């Protein structure tokens, strides 16, 4: 029985009331006097030299007030992390269909569109590169202006070196050697990218953006606008979903409107249409894997050798880091004697790739969980039982050789999904099905997922907490909430640690002027790192209040008991929160604190491919059951059972929501989200072609949070928002493999893939893209 009053109990999204009433203000809902609307000129071709750009004709159009291009930014608006290969607006070249070239601000959207049309832009097409496997071949078109590693289209390389797999594999009784492919995935957040810039009288600018990280945005603006940090303020608007997708393109969009706002002296707003968003924004990287696994005669995994090719598209974005996460998870949540992983990230002209929920582990789990399933099959073993035999437990070493020194709930997850899905009976029964048209299958997948940034960088967060004059509390964090509930979680943590009613706590949205930089809101770090920072702040404030209470009650601070919000002495004299605050102020205490928490230093040697990649891990397993029409490919997902070990759950409805939502994205990734490029042109330009699951496409879901306590997380919590999506696609692929007796080794498993093993290529992509950009061939 929990002795916590808030954490772990039903709660609701702290910004939910405005949202359900339709009063929440997203970027596109904000309307300011004198506001101009911006429109973007984008490249209609995948690869070209920007030979001529004349903006003057645009400025002559009625209603057009200003226009900007690369030359209007410091150092041509160069930006990008970890590789600085991108620009606010294209400089010298365009590298993918949708690459932004210029932006026009006008009185109306129509006028802005007319202005865009008037721009004279001559593009000299260059040969395009569309197959990542050709990117490093001699004679391949060179995409970057400056090769990041001095090696043509190579963006980054990542390696893992744990032992020596070759000799081990040579001695293995069973060796699997197969290739797998995962396609791109579109975030498809319901709200498209957008930003609104408001110029200040003193030459500064405030930007409201639906970006992922306001501080990174602010730093980029400082850099590309060439103005000092105290003149740039970024406020995060209410964000309509992100899933990792509103990084780079969010900062580009912000810079575009900021420059126009400074030029015109008027607010400027830019919101992307869905077509623009689908063409211009980055995608989950497409990856190709070559997996070699070796097991002994007892079915014990011994060694793995994995090679990964990641399609970064036109720009690096976060792909080098996603490729690192993919690499250090590539062999899965199992024990090995030796593992080597070699990953190459390459440029192509296929859109561009960056962060998306799971950040490389979605792809790695999708692949390795199919591979081990095939291996188990060849061993003649039940795939779930085989996983229980080989999966990680506390005290084991992971595939990078790092010691797992904390609680590991993976076997509990596997056992839970096994029991609740009725796995044993179904797996056996479906293996014995008669060869009829409609066949069933049941499949499993499991994962481990490193928490937070790991080897990617310094990992800390800061929270501030202050008691206001009206006895409310203001809590800030540099980490952001785009719907996944981080602000709610922090509010709950603060309320619990302070012993106050959550309603007393007010948490404004991140604002570079009042919050404190905390790194990006990515990598499943929000609850642990941000939550710990919140808890540190709350404990500091609690310490001050206890001092005051003890002083007022005539006892030691440590002897003050809490009953609800009351502070009670051993002699049972009680004070309200307000009384304690007043007394604290009389004592001269300042009730404003800052809490910082940093992940203990971990060392990963990128050159050697060795070290400890993460501070801790989370784990999980999912089972999916399908009914497949083997002739048409039509698939009904009958059920999903999901268990996740992410430590204590703070916000129960939020955690469940992440799980349901992640599973839905996994279903889409596995079965219907077909983000492909045909010679650089996206197959789909809107949500009528790019299909995400509807309410009728998701099955009943049984879910379970295995709450293995983790001492170093806030109230024992780790995290869950990302990883809960990553087992769904391979579980479905494995279920379909049982139902169809075919293994396609590619995602998504569209109808054509399921039936033919060939995705087929619909014609007309170029025309659709051009139409979407108001152009005609």
């Amino acid at each position: 029985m929990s002795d916590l009053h808030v954490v772990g109990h039903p709660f609701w999204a702290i910004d939910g009331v405005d949202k359900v009433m339709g009063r929440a203000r997203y970027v596109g809902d904000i309307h300011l006097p004198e506001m101009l609307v911006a429109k973007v000129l984008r490249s209609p071709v995948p690869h070209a030299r920007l030979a001529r750009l004349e903006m003057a004709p645009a400025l002559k159009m009625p209603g057009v007030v200003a226009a900007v291009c690369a030359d209007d930014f410091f150092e041509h608006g160069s930006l990008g992390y970890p590789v600085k290969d991108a620009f606010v607006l294209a400089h010298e070249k365009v590298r993918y269909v949708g690459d932004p070239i210029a932006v026009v601000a006008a009185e109306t959207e129509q006028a802005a569109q007319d202005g865009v049309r008037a721009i004279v832009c001559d593009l000299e097409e260059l040969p395009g590169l569309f197959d990542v496997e050709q990117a490093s071949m001699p004679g391949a078109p060179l995409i970057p202006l400056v090769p990041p590693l001095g090696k043509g289209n190579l963006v980054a390389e990542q390696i893992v070196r744990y032992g020596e797999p070759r000799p081990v594999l040579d001695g293995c009784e069973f060796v699997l050697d197969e290739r797998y492919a995962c396609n791109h995935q579109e975030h498809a957040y319901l709200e498209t990218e957008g930003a609104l810039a408001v110029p200040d009288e003193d030459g500064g600018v405030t930007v409201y953006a639906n970006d992922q990280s306001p501080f990174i945005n602010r730093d980029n603006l400082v850099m590309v606008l060439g103005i000092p940090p105290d003149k740039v303020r970024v406020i995060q608007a209410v964000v309509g979903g992100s899933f990792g997708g509103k990084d780079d393109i969010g900062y580009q969009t912000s810079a575009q409107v900021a420059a126009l706002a400074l030029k015109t002296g008027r607010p400027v707003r830019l919101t992307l249409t869905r077509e623009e968003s689908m063409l211009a924004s980055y995608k989950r990287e497409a990856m190709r894997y070559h997996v070699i696994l070796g097991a002994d005669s007892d079915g014990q995994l011994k060694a793995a050798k994995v090679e990964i090719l990641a399609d970064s598209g036109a720009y690096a974005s976060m792909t080098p880091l996603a490729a690192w996460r993919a690499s250090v998870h590539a062999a899965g949540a199992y024990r090995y004697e030796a593992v080597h992983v070699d990953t190459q990230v390459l440029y192509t002209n296929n859109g561009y790739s960056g962060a998306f929920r799971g950040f490389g582990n979605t792809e790695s789990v999708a692949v390795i969980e199919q591979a081990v399933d095939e291996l188990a099959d060849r061993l003649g073993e039940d795939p779930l039982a085989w996983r229980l035999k080989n999966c990680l437990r506390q005290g084991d070493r992971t595939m990078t050789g790092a010691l797992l020194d904390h609680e590991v709930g993976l076997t509990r997850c596997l056992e839970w999904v096994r029991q609740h899905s009725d796995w044993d009976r179904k797996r056996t029964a479906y293996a014995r099905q008669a060869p009829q048209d409609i066949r069933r299958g049941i499949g499993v997948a499991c994962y481990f997922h490193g928490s937070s940034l790991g080897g990617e960088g310094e990992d800390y967060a800061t929270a501030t907490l202050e008691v206001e004059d009206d006895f409310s509390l203001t809590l800030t964090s540099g980490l952001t909430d785009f719907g996944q509930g981080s602000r709610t979680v922090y509010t709950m943590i603060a309320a619990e640690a302070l012993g106050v009613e959550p309603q007393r706590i007010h948490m404004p949205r991140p604002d570079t002027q009042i919050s404190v930089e905390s790194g990006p809101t990515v990598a499943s770090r929000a609850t642990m790192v941000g939550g710990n920072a919140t808890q540190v702040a709350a404990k500091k404030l609690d310490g001050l209040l206890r001092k005051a209470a003890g002083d007022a009650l005539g006892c030691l601070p440590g002897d003050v008991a809490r009953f609800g919000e009351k502070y009670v002495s051993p002699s049972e004299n009680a004070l309200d929160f307000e009384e304690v605050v007043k007394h604290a102020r009389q004592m001269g205490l300042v009730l404003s604190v800052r809490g910082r928490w940093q992940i203990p230093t971990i060392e990963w040697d990128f050159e050697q491919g060795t070290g400890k990649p993460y501070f801790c891990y989370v784990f999980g397993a999912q089972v999916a059951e399908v009914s497949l029409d083997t002739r048409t490919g039509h698939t009904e997902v009958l059920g999903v059972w999901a268990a996740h070990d992410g430590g204590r759950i703070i916000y129960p409805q939020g955690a469940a929501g992440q799980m349901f939502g992640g599973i839905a994205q996994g279903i889409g990734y596995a079965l219907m989200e077909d983000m492909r490029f045909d010679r650089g042109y996206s197959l789909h330009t809107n949500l009528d072609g790019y299909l995400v699951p509807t309410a009728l496409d998701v099955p009943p879901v049984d879910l379970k949070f295995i709450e293995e306590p983790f001492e170093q997380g806030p109230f024992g919590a780790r995290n869950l928002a990302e990883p809960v999506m990553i087992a769904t696609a391979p579980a479905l692929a494995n279920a379909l493999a049982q139902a169809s007796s075919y293994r396609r080794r590619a995602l998504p498993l569209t109808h054509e893939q399921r039936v033919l093993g060939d995705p087929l290529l619909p014609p007309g992509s170029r025309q659709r893209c051009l139409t979407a950009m108001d152009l005609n061939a």
Partner: protein
Amino acid sequence: MKIHFDLNGQEVEVEASASTTLLTLLRETLGLTGAKPACEVGECGACSVIVDGRVVDSCLMLAAQVDGRRVVTVEGLVAAQDGPNDLQQAFLDAGAVQCGYCTPGFIVAAEALLARNSNPNRQEIRQGIAGNLCRCTGYHQIVDAVEMTAARRRGYKSQGNRGGHAKDALA
């Protein structure tokens, strides 16, 4: 052209060009930003409003088409004391709100469903919201919220789990 219609129980008259969509009219002329643009091709339901009792995609309607009609938007679905109504509260209780961008559309579609069917089973609820896309929640808790509300409005406790599966997950 002049467009005259009943908006959330009040008569309004506005001037708009014939090519203006109902969505644009609501958001930009009338300042009601609850209905959202998300695809603008009638695929996602984020722009849903109710016209003459039927839920429709306002991005696929011309403003001119509602002349003489009754339009209800999410802003019209408030409780008497200007707070969330019972359905909106159920969304909050069930954890059905994450980023919230799709939420007004779902609220409208669910109200339209419940107006026609006061006792929908979960499959019927899913059919009633099948024209609304959500990328965050996976729909489960949205269905819970609608089911809870239907039961409350019918005046007795629901047979299912109140508070949705979030509780089960921690059992």
